[in-house]
């Protein structure tokens, strides 16, 4: 996989709002992201929103003969140095917490997977401003 973005090609941000096991969105978005990378496009950021935050749980434990989508995403994010954010309001509602939020709300554990950061909707607003293309993967995707 060529990891060097070509100059002049549009930069992309991906928004995933479909849930991990209630939609195809995280898998479709991963295939799209890999296609972007393989054709030399830049991915500026990934933003998880609504049910999409389920992708970022370190506790997702699929059977060993199924794709581990969280791990597959983590590998791409790390390999390509792509920042990935989970919306804080969506995440906290659904029990996805980093250590700081677990401490703040006195919850017994943190479960945010490595490679993901909890952040506000401002990161999405910034994606709209920074990226040439913002591609949304909703629940029906």
């Amino acid at each position, binding site marked *: 996989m060529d990891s060097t973005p070509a100059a002049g090609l549009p930069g992309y941000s991906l928004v995933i*709002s479909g849930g991990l096991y209630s939609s195809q969105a995280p898998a479709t978005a991963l295939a799209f992201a890999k296609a972007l990378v393989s054709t030399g496009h830049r991915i500026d950021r990934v933003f998880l*929103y*609504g049910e999409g935050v389920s992708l970022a749980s370190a506790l997702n434990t699929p059977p060993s003969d199924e794709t581990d989508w969280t791990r597959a995403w983590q590998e791409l994010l790390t390999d390509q140095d792509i920042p990935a954010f989970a919306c804080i*309001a*969506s995440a906290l*509602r659904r029990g996805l917490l980093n250590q700081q939020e677990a401490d703040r709300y006195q919850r017994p554990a943190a479960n945010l997977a490595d490679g993901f950061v909890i952040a*506000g*909707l*401002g990161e*999405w*607003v910034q994606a*709209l*401003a920074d990226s040439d293309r*913002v591609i*949304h993967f*909703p*629940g029906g995707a």
Partner: protein
Amino acid sequence: MTDSAVLVVIDQPPYGDWQGREALDMAFSLAAFDRPVALLFRGPGVNWLRPGQDAGPLGQKTVSRNLGAATIFGVEALYADTTSLAHFGLRDMEPPAETVSPDAAFYRSFSHVVQL
């Protein structure tokens, strides 16, 4: 980035799930960052505008109250799809919205269209 607005589409009824509320949060967030934003209610989503809602018995907040603050928070316009309003028998809207028959040109007039 263009100066034209982002359109956030709400096409799910209130109270059935959290999609509409989270779409509204996106709109309010854009407004908070001084980005032009408009809301379109379409399909079952027009029921967000139904007058006289009381979500208390559901243990939820009444969405029309949040929505009433939209223009105060800087949402530029509320649109409601004419056909959907007729389908759901809605004549009055709370808060009031501009009725439109959204076609391709309508959607193209926005820089981004967001639908959860």
